[in-house]
């Protein structure tokens, strides 16, 4: 029988998974203060939908999806577009490709943190979900509300960019992964 104590259940879950959510958020945005903001927004939304979240078998998946959606929504905001435009010196604001010239200035062997920062938001989210969260193409597509084909293309582009910035041996070949 249940003790439908929404607050207690939510608090227990959020306390237990806060560190994990912070790590994922950090990999998505690369800044701890923004990561905390993302997690704060995520767990607030999670609380709002706790009656639904607690019914699903994979609450972590629900929380991760909320986190990624929050991150991508933030990237669509005016501030984020401004930041991306100025970081890369132009491009498509909604989901920009990095400026090759800007990338060309980067030294080979760039650290992973900096390299991740050069990925457009959806590519970055795809890489984090596929290779940090260890999700399949189908699971990633579900979280990002897009087709598996889009996930594959985002993975391909993201990994290709990382290969240009990092030790190529670090980055998986596309074959067999997509």
């Amino acid at each position, binding site marked *: *029988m249940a*003790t439908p*104590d929404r*607050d*207690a259940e939510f608090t227990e879950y959020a306390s237990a998974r806060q560190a994990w959510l912070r790590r994922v958020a950090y990999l998505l945005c690369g800044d701890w*203060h923004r990561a905390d903001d993302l997690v704060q927004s995520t767990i607030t939304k999670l609380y*709002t939908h706790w009656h639904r979240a607690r019914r699903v078998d994979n609450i972590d998946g629900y929380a991760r999806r909320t986190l990624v959606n929050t991150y*991508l929504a933030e990237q669509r905001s005016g501030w984020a577009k401004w930041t991306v435009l100025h970081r890369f010196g132009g491009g498509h604001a909604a989901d920009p490709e990095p400026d090759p010239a800007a990338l060309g200035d980067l030294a080979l062997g760039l650290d*992973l943190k900096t390299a991740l920062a050069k990925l457009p938001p959806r590519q970055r989210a795809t890489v984090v979900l596929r290779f940090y969260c260890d999700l399949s193409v189908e699971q990633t597509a579900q979280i990002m509300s897009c087709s598996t084909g889009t996930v594959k293309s985002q993975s391909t582009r993201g990994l290709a960019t990382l290969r240009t910035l990092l030790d190529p041996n*670090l980055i998986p070949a596309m074959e067999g992964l997509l």
Partner: protein
Amino acid sequence: MNQHLKTSLEELADAEYADAPPTTVDIGRARADGRRRIATARLAPIGGGLALVAACALVANGLGGTSPAERPATMSAGSGDLTAGTDPLSEVASFGYVPDGYQVATHVLGSGLTTVILQTKPMLPSQKPGDLIPAELQLSSSATELKPVPPETTTEVKVKGSPKAYIVHDGDGTEIADRLQWQTASGSWFTLVAFNKIHGAQLQAMLVKVADSVTANGSAVPLPIHIDGVPKGATLGAASLADPIVVGQNPPAARTTLDFGDGKSRFISFSIVVMPVGSTDPQGGKSGPPASTDACKDSKGLRICVLDSHDGASGVDPLESVGGAKGLLDQITSLGTDRSNWTTHVLN
């Protein structure tokens, strides 16, 4: 080779985490903000039932009210047919139209709010591949307008007989669907929100069509138990009657819950849960076996349990005044599984 990238990402996250500044994430603030969003976005207090909400103000004021047994006069104020403050649940409204497949599934009083939830058979994908969950319509009413909170925006619409109606759009649109709020001729307000497959103009048209058909109905919802005495200091925080039969769960098992606080903390001190004998709790439950402080009995085809959730950190356990969970259980009368025998006279 993908293991290399995975390992590198894990090492990056771990290394950066080790040097991360102290977190500013505040779970308590998330709860408070979440409750505010629920209050303004998805649910609303029952029309004319603000006294009930105030008495059950689990959210806004903590569990600081009097026990339900001590407030029949205030609970009945303006609550239509609500029976002398003895039944925590109300019908909220009658529907002249709902989209195909929707049926009343759940009545809820919780987080200081009362609502009715209509569901379909499972049709929406859950997080588990291949699994489906029901689509939902949720309707609540309030005595006053629940103003949208920035960055929410509004679009005016027309609802039959309403002097003012508008659609509220969530700030980022990622988590909370558009909702419809409208004022009734008597001045109270309704809020209607849907979780289904449609969006945008199609969703808004559906919300308006349902709203056009809504008639306020404050009738009490019959429940399968009568409680002779509520423990001293206990305050009703939440109640629900969930009827999964309409969403195809097997075996069907109407589930009644009443959650009480201790008047001080925001946490629930004890719960009364009622289900048919032998049924499986569709909402899950405590992990592990029942605690020694819990008590259950089977009567007239119903299993009635009093679950002691008092953590000892917030003062007196209300159950102590009645001899613990077993003492309260002895004061609960089962009315059986036949709904024609259920009562609106729940709390003495």
